[in-house]
């Protein structure tokens, strides 16, 4: 396994924002040149600088295309490219000089520079600068989720299918040995002004791409895994300041206030350390923060190959409501499920051709806060006046505790209140 290669991937991911791409594309499309070619070249320029592509490969790839598009009959560009192809010890600065020198030629070549080379160079040099500066433990992975190429784990949860049985809640607490009341998986039953009957909201961690909890963390304990976008807590780094819990809009964090119900010795080491050998899975030790992890040790194959791509809650759901997988992959379980639900509920486009293709309602929770959550719900969103009510199955019926403070108050030293 080459670390260089994964570094390069990280660098690309860090740069590859949709915004920038769109901006570049707009720039290119202003001209009359082939925008796709420009974008491809720009992307490859990034790869070039990230070390995934050699200069010779880069030159070979675009040599002919450039000639065709711009009809350059002059020898200067090909010559420059050829000398690059020779790989005669050109460093980046020299490469820049060489390309800049082309600008002294006629209008055609200036156009080439402007429309393609420059865009590529900017992106390329930008990447280079980013790589140079990224000497921290890991580059911020906040853009990884926006990258179509990268993995971004998440869920599609079909609230119309949920029956409030709380099997997922039990499965999660058993899988992770969480302490009483630390409901990493939590299911609301609620009533709302404009919704009849029983409504459910299945609340995991939203594994936000722009996670507020991660931003405020004073230690980097709360972090996003670069490889799959999971938002995790490094139990060996967390200082227990609980700022993540304060900043999270969803209330998904559960602090380990006292000794965990399950001692360390009873935990399966394969289920504690993830594939990077960081202690991020199972219940947290005393004094640090825990929350829904979406089962990283399963995803890393540490629980057996058959559990890769699954989570405890999804496995336990007999209603087929929870679908876990790569949100960026068209063929993943959540996306396929969503596609299937959409196709099963087509809209009447025969009579109303301007209607959306289907009648399926989806939402992301509190999306307006800009957290870019990675859980998509099928069904209705609870309104601002929705109120939680007793569900068909009570937490107490299945051996769990809903309101954790009732448990925690037992440990309070003289004082505290039971609501």
């Amino acid at each position: 396994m080459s670390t260089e290669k994964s570094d390069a991937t990280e660098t690309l991911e860090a740069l590859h924002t949709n915004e920038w791409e769109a901006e570049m594309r707009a720039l290119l499309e202003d001209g009359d040149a082939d925008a796709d070619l420009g974008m491809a070249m720009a992307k490859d320029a990034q790869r070039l600088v990230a070390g995934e592509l050699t200069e010779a490969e880069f030159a070979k790839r675009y040599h002919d295309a450039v000639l065709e598009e711009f009809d350059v009959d002059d020898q200067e560009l090909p010559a420059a490219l050829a000398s690059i192809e020779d790989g005669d010890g050109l460093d980046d600065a020299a490469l820049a000089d060489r390309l800049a020198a082309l600008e002294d030629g006629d209008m055609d070549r200036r156009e080439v520079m402007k429309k393609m080379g420059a865009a590529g160079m900017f992106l390329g040099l930008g990447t280079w600068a980013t790589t140079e500066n990224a000497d921290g433990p890991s580059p911020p992975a906040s853009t990884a989720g926006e990258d179509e190429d990268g993995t971004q784990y998440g869920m599609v949860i079909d609230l119309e299918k949920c029956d409030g049985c709380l099997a997922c809640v039990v499965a999660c607490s058993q899988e992770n040995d969480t302490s009483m009341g630390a409901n990493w998986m939590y299911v609301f039953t609620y009533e709302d002004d404009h919704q009849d009957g029983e409504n459910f909201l299945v609340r995991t961690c939203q594994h936000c791409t722009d996670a507020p909890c991660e931003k405020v963390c004073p230690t980097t304990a709360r972090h996003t895994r670069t490889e799959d976008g999971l938002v995790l807590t490094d139990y060996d780094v967390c200082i227990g300041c609980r700022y993540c819990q304060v900043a999270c809009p969803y209330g998904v964090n559960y602090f380990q206030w006292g000794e965990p119900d399950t001692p360390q010795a009873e935990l399966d080491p394969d289920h504690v350390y993830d594939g990077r050998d960081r202690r991020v899975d199972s219940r947290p030790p005393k004094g640090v923060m825990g929350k829904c992890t979406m089962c990283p040790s399963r995803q890393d194959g540490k629980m057996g190959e058959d559990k890769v791509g699954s989570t405890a809650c999804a496995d336990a759901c007999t209603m087929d409501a929870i679908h876990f997988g790569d949100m960026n992959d068209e063929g993943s379980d959540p996306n396929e499920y969503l596609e299937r639900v959409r196709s099963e509920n087509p809209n009447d486009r025969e009579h109303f051709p301007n209607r959306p293709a289907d009648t399926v309602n989806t939402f992301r929770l509190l999306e307006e806060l800009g957290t870019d959550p990675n859980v998509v719900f099928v069904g209705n969103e609870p309104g601002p006046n929705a109120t939680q009510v007793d569900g068909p199955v009570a937490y107490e019926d299945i051996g769990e505790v809903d309101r954790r403070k009732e448990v925690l108050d037992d440990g309070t030293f003289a004082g505290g209140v039971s609501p």
Partner: protein
Amino acid sequence: MSTKTPSSADILRPLQNTSKRFYLVFAVAALAFGLFLAGWVYQLQHGLIVTGLADWGSGGGVTWGLYIGAFIWWVGIAHGGIILSAAVRLLKMDRYMPVARLAELLTIAGLSAAGFYIIVHMGRPDRMVTSILGNYHVTVHNSPLVWDVTVITLYFVMTATYLLLTLRYDVTRLREGLPNRFEPLYKLLTLGYTEKEDEVVERMVWWLALAIIIMAPLLLHGGVIPWLFALIPTMPGWFGAIQGPQFLTIALTSAISGVIILSFGFRKAYDWDHIITDDIFRGLTLWLGFFAMLFLWLQLQQLVSGGFAAPIDQSVTFDSKVTHPAYVIPMGMVGLTLAYIFAQTVRPSLFTKARAIIAAVAVLIATLVEKVYFVVAGLMYPTFGLYEATPGAYFPSLIEISSVVGTIGMVTLFFLLVAKVIPVVELHAIEHLNETREGEHDGERGGGDSEPLTETATEPEVTA
């Protein structure tokens, strides 16, 4: 005014005599601090479960409570202390010179108490160094908590520098009267001292004071401390632009209250009624009234904007405020204090030192309770209020309550000890007081004892 003439012997008295009462106060303070330390050890053993805190959301509690409220309170006291001292230098408010060093020391002590609270509040304080410093270059770009630690450290260093620079003058001149057992310390403090540096130090201290005055609203209690809360958009009780100014007024009211109480204690203990004069108390009380007014005014702004056709989450916060005793009672206390100070301005005979002390204590209690309420209410009424368990419940445990008493004990101990090592009143203040006296004899300041020149600088703002 007393007929006694202020002398250097006066300010050396704490260093030379130790009364029975000193030991008594020391014992009480040490007991208070010790009790809390014992409580903290218990907390370290069992975890933060010993507090009244819990998870917000389905958990039905709040995750930050009295520890954070008291942290803000101490930083506020610390912060205003040095502002007062800096104002003496920058604005030439010479009248307050005798309490300037006490205010500086209050900053050091208050920041220490606040820093202690940060550690007490954590689940794993043992990782402070490795986890925070080790990742500082990454986290400083994002985390308001890291900005906080950065600025507080900077502030601490600046205040300490300020104090150490001004001490050199005094220690050199008063060396004869200082206890010999601290000889190495005094040598270190006055290392390389020459009289030529006095003027330079004067300048340096002036610039440091300016930097501190600029930093105060921009960075400290008008900045990073309120930003811890004001930048969280999903806690409507916290979010918004007003918290900076609001926190600044809290800092200034509580700091002036702290200085009033401290000054009173030292004056009584060492017969300093000719140094820390009634006039100083009268002036400090007026300032307290001015900042109390600003405090209430900004609270009112929040009530108005949260009460009129506000969004749902804001309305819930508003409803809690106007009905919760932990908000209403502190507001009433500050309001009554303000009313008294107004009355005292109109009819000066209403002023007594005892009333000034009551006003100061009332404001300190009110700001502490209001700050704890602020922290707790923010977490009780989140924007995402679907949880049946919100608003959560919270009442501090005995250990948390003892932390307040304990840190007050800690700060008291600090003053008791420092007073035995360095003069807590500047020699400059004595020199200045004597100059003023001579001036009075020459008839230059005809206004008499209650009307020194600086009075005019204070009054218009207070009565405005």
